[in-house]
């Protein structure tokens, strides 16, 4: 074999390997065929527990299992047992589509709980629409799910990218910084969420200017060049849409460069990232997130935290809390509708008032977005829980930051 041919072969195999590694784990759980009217109700959790966003998938799985067990312990939904199928979409949109299709067509699930990655979510939502199967998003939050790609079977229990970006701008509007830089992962979520922040910030604080924007790849391993190029632009403050493994890597490399002493910084410092960082967490930076367990003050959250810790020996992250809410919303909707069938369920859930772990929320009719808040606070040491959490917590109500109904209908193209 000649070397040229061999090298070419090598490249081909590496590419095949890449695709293959993304597809190698399909099923991680099993399920039985459900009858339409009686017997167990099948539902599927399709999430990402490998790949760049894997940190959050595990929390999703834990919480959804717990929610389903609780439903079954209380006699099931409509007196029928709930049977959970768990699938791993591996942060891969194509795999997500395939798994969603299988779950709907072969396992005949009544509902799907969505993935971590927004890229996977956008691919999966089309399958749900084509097959008229309700899909509940809790962790992936790109706005297109409730706007451009919205369909009547899609629901969102997390704050979407617009709410998150706008909420952060409101929380930071009184900060004295004029020169802002932005660092966001180069995909759906990173661009939409940081643009929402930039737009709102410009509106609230016309003096603020954006001096630098950088978009590292999702899963970037070396941020040094990005950090030095941000610092070279001499910003006062840096807005980050980094999260999970990327945020851990960024934080460690930024710390070595004295980044946190030079600029104000905020990013998605949620429970999973702060506990992964431990003593390496940059105290004093501003974190934002969607459901920090210690920031929530409702009667429902205390027993939830206690049971979650009992089961998994760890504190529930934001991604656990929201995934749990998604399951409980679905169950409440089914009880209200009196059937698991999609169309009556959708009718029951439009305008539905639901007591989530984060407090009472409404599912807005126009885009099925839950009126959930966005949270932020200062990262501080916390000896009691064993990893850093926040103080000076602010929560901005969802109704204050979501798109107006006119904006939504315009984007939905109706």
């Amino acid at each position, binding site marked *: 074999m000649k070397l040229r041919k061999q090298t070419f*072969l090598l490249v081909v195999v590496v590419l095949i390997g890449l695709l293959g590694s993304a597809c190698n784990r399909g099923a991680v759980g099993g399920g039985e065929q459900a009858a339409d009217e009686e017997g167990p109700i099948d539902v599927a959790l399709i999430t990402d527990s490998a*790949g760049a966003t894997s940190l959050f998938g595990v929390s999703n799985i834990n919480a959804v299992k717990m929610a389903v067990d609780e439903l079954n312990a209380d006699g099931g939904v409509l007196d029928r047992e709930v049977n959970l199928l768990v699938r791993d979409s591996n942060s891969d949109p194509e795999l997500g589509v395939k798994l969603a299709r299988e779950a709907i067509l072969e396992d005949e699930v009544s509902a799907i709980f969505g993935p971590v990655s927004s890229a996977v979510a956008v691919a999966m939502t089309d399958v749900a629409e084509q097959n008229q199967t309700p899909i509940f998003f809790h962790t992936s939050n790109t706005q297109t799910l409730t706007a451009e790609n919205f369909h009547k079977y899609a629901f969102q229990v997390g704050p979407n990218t617009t709410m998150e970006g706008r909420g952060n701008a409101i929380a930071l509007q009184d900060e004295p910084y004029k020169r802002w830089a932005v660092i966001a992962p180069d995909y759906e979520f990173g661009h939409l969420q940081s643009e929402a922040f930039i737009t709102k910030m410009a509106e609230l604080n016309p003096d603020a200017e954006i001096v630098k924007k950088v978009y590292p790849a999702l899963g970037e391993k070396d941020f040094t060049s990005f950090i030095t190029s941000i610092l070279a632009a001499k910003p006062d403050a840096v807005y980050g849409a980094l999260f999970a493994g990327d945020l851990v890597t960024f934080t460690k490399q930024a710390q070595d460069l004295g980044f946190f002493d030079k600029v104000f910084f905020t990013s998605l410092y949620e429970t999973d990232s702060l506990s992964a960082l431990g003593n390496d967490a940059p105290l004093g930076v501003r974190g934002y997130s969607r459901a920090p367990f210690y920031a929530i003050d409702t009667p429902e959250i205390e027993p939830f935290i206690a049971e979650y810790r009992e089961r998994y020996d760890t504190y529930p992250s934001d991604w656990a809390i929201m995934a749990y809410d998604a399951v409980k919303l679905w169950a409440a909707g089914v009880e209200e509708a009196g059937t698991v069938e999609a169309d009556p369920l959708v009718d029951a859930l439009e305008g539905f008032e639901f007591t989530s772990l984060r407090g009472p929320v409404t599912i807005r009719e126009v885009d099925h977005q839950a009126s959930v808040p966005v949270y932020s606070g200062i990262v501080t040491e916390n000896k009691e829980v064993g990893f850093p959490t926040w103080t000076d917590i602010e929560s901005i109500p969802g109704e204050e930051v979501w798109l107006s109904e006119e904006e939504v209908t315009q984007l939905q193209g109706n």
Partner: protein
Amino acid sequence: MTLDEFVIQLMAGLSRAGLLFIVSAGLSLVFGALRVINLAHGSLYMLGAFVAASVVTKVGSAIGLLPAVVVAAVLVAVVGVAIEIGILRRLYRQEHLLQLLATYGVVLVIADVVRYIWGPTNRSVAAPEFLRGSIGLMGGSFPIYSLFIIAVALAAGAGLWLVVNRTSLGRDIRAAIVDPEMLAGVGVNVSRLFTIVFALGAALAGIAGAIVAPSTAVGLGMDIEIIIEAFAVTIIGGLGSITGALIGAALVGIADSFGILLAPRLAVAFIFLAMAIVLAIKPSGLFGLPERA
């Protein structure tokens, strides 16, 4: 771009290059002697990082990195020996395609083993106090840890050069690169030599994984991410050549670092463009070995 920005960016590139060199040198060494393209090389790197994470957690961050590097190198070398004796030895006379498939199988197995042992969540490894922070460099500041990576890479390069050029083992390795059958003919135990070379390559991957751990998030997916870059390096530099790995790593590291500054969204493309050009003009790479007769 001011001078200090230029220097910082250059050093950041060299630090990435240092890491890529340690990984690619092992990959290249194995190919040179065994003529096996080891897709699982990145998996050995990931294994090294996870082992280092466990050792540092056990020993503490103050001095944890030193035992972590040693344990990672030894343990990964042992895994390498098992792979060579258990799998590759049976495939030397087979087609390259079969060897690729076998090492790709190892990629999948190691990924699942790592997930089984350490779970899917990311880990953060604390660096020793004296390697934290940054030092002044031409008016800018540069992380000490990145300098440390460059230093380890230089030491690994020097050590490898000494082994290959100044020891009897190195003499055998050089001979095996040219003609293993002749080497067997003069009484050298070639299959044992191959095991040693593979273990050496694996140890380099383990060391690279261990030293990268404190500067990044240790998680699944590190294997694929590094192997793609390492192949870019070896394709540019030429498979089988340590010098090629050095030059290739420097080119890729620096192109990446300046690419980010000049055109962030094209940085990755620069590397693959360089790879395509080298493949078109000199398919064996800049310093690549000719095919064995």
